[in-house]
């Protein structure tokens, strides 16, 4: 295998990896402020694509359609938190997680009923042939995915580190009660983080649509891969989630190159389980010590 070919596998891996990373960021955001896994994250990914296509078909220009798709999905995220999760917020993490699974089923079924079962697509953001780089072909849409991933992770890191709201989110992740005692409106923090996670998922979903098309049923796979990426990297840390996504994409791509495409998902998952046993906090994540 030539070095150009090997590099092509790496590029392919990072392309899927960027998708996983963007979904993983949504998991991380919600986990960061609530301590729960939001299994509806994949459906936000799906909604972003499907709603953007809907707006685009109404005649909006691509940029506006994308924006409208993201905003509507963020609205769905906010409403989902307010209507489905907040009423049971004292019920414990497991109940909340199960509610998110139920919510994902509802979103999925409703989408199928409203928008129909057939797949649909968006035009590429910057159409044109792939860019040749040292014998490697790089898709223009892949550059968009990488750009979005970088912007998203920088923005989230800034939010966490430098803003009042980010500090409030981190406080919530440590202890809701303590945060509330410190005067933080924890309910608002949780709701906003759901809105942000939904917007991020939607962004990923619509950026992928020109490559893969979208439909009511794309959320489950995206959610599973994004979840795996978030766990692999380490939940709660944006940079770790992105690294988790890229590593997962690379693992799959190299499995195809050196082993078998039939078992690429299984191989990626076995690696994930090994990581979980050796480093439950993820590749990058820092172990959370529970002090007594």
């Amino acid at each position: 295998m030539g070095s150009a070919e090997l590099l092509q596998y790496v590029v392919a891996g990072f392309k899927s990896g960027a998708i996983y990373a963007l979904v993983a960021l949504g998991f991380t955001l919600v986990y960061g402020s609530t301590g729960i896994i939001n299994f509806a994250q994949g459906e936000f990914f799906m909604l972003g694509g499907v709603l953007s296509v809907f707006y685009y078909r109404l005649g909006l220009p691509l940029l506006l359609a994308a924006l409208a798709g993201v905003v509507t999905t963020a609205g769905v995220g906010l409403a989902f938190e307010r209507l489905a999760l907040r009423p049971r917020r004292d019920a414990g993490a497991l109940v909340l997680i199960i509610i998110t699974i139920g919510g994902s089923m509802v979103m999925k079924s409703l989408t199928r009923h409203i928008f129909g079962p057939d797949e649909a697509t968006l035009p590429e953001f910057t159409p044109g042939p792939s860019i040749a780089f040292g014998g490697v072909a790089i898709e223009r849409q892949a550059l968009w995915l990488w750009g979005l991933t970088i912007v998203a992770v920088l923005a989230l890191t800034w939010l966490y580190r430098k803003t009042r709201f980010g500090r409030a989110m981190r406080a919530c992740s440590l202890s809701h009660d303590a945060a509330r005692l410190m005067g933080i409106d924890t309910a608002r923090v949780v709701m906003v983080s759901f809105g942000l996670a939904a917007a991020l998922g939607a962004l990923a979903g619509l950026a992928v649509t020109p490559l893969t098309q979208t439909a009511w049923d794309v959320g489950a796979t995206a959610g599973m891969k994004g979840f795996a990426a978030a766990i692999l990297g380490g939940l709660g840390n944006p940079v770790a989630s992105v690294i988790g996504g890229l590593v997962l994409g690379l693992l799959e791509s190299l499995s195809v190159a050196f082993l078998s495409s039939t078992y690429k998902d299984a191989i990626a998952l076995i690696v994930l389980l090994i990581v979980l046993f050796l480093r439950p906090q993820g590749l990058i994540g820092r172990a959370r010590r529970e002090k007594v």
Partner: protein
Amino acid sequence: MKRTRVILVLLTIVALLWALGCAGKPGEDESSLPEASAEPYRIGVVISLSGTYAGLGGPEQKAIDMEVARINAEGGVNGHPIEIVYEDDATDAAKAQAAVVRLIDEVGVIAVLGASGTGQTMAMRADIERAGVPQISMAGGSAVTAQLSEWVFQTPWPNRIVVPFVLKAMAADGYKNIAVISDTGGYGVDGHDVIVKSAADAGVTIVADETYNPGDADMTAQLTKMRGANPDAVLVWAAGKEAATIAKNARQLNMTQPIYGGSGIARLEFISGAGEAAEGVKLGTGKILVPEAYGEGTEEYEVATSFIDRYTEEYGEAPDIFAGHAYDAFGLVVDALGRVEGEATPAALRDAIEATDGWIGVGGTFSYSAEDHNGLTEDDLVMYVIEGGTWKLAE
């Protein structure tokens, strides 16, 4: 710490199972009640109106609805109106099996049409054989009629007919070394088996053989590997939106090899999804996409265009191949019912269906026999090339 680890592992496993199983919905049924004069003939239909194959079940239901209304308006069959009882299997084999039990034991149907998918069709077999009710499946899997059952018939062109047809077309076009990519769903696995078995006879050599999972977002890695094997042409055996991604990925990798496919990509969504990358893609399937393929002025042409025109007028869109499969399944039962002498029992109906000889549908001309419950041949297929965003007959 221990607890966190256990919970994360459990969640991973739950997520896996959840992704594999996906969400389903309970079956829905509705009955179209005709103004009965004589006792109606009840026919059960099990199709996928939700789940992965929802895109198949929709057109199938439309075609059957339209034909039932027409037959009943003409006075039914032998003076009996036809009553259809629908069951949605939600693209789930277990639900298909439950649905057929209900249709046989509670509704008491004389025939079952469906299912949309091969897995669902096969799941119904034990109960079909137990009760002795004829079944006409609209699924294209080879297994449906290759594993012959006295009671089960099939309307689509199965892979065991389409695959050799496409492989021979590739060889005739001068492409001897082919790279194959197929999905790990029922259609791809079934097709892959036939590709491997019939490649030598068709005169082609498989130089690369890759798979992908339904839902995958990018097939660049597989295509890079295929490109490395230096094939003359690429054969995509896939049903679903990933086929469009493959065509696009190949174009972006600057692969110049022509792409071939089968019935699985004979959908408008493939063309709109792949965009420019769909141009020049060749596929082998039935003649419904371009009715001229039937030969203008022939009876086949009249039957097909009549169906296409009525469907288009009724629903504002042209029927796809799945609507055609449903039209054929229903039409075969109606034709057989008309030939039953005496009481129309399921057993008598089965014998009449098996005696079908030269019935003209949109999928082709059906002639069933005790050994052949598919009834179609390669003569009912044609090669298309995608040009200007639509199908054209290939030379």
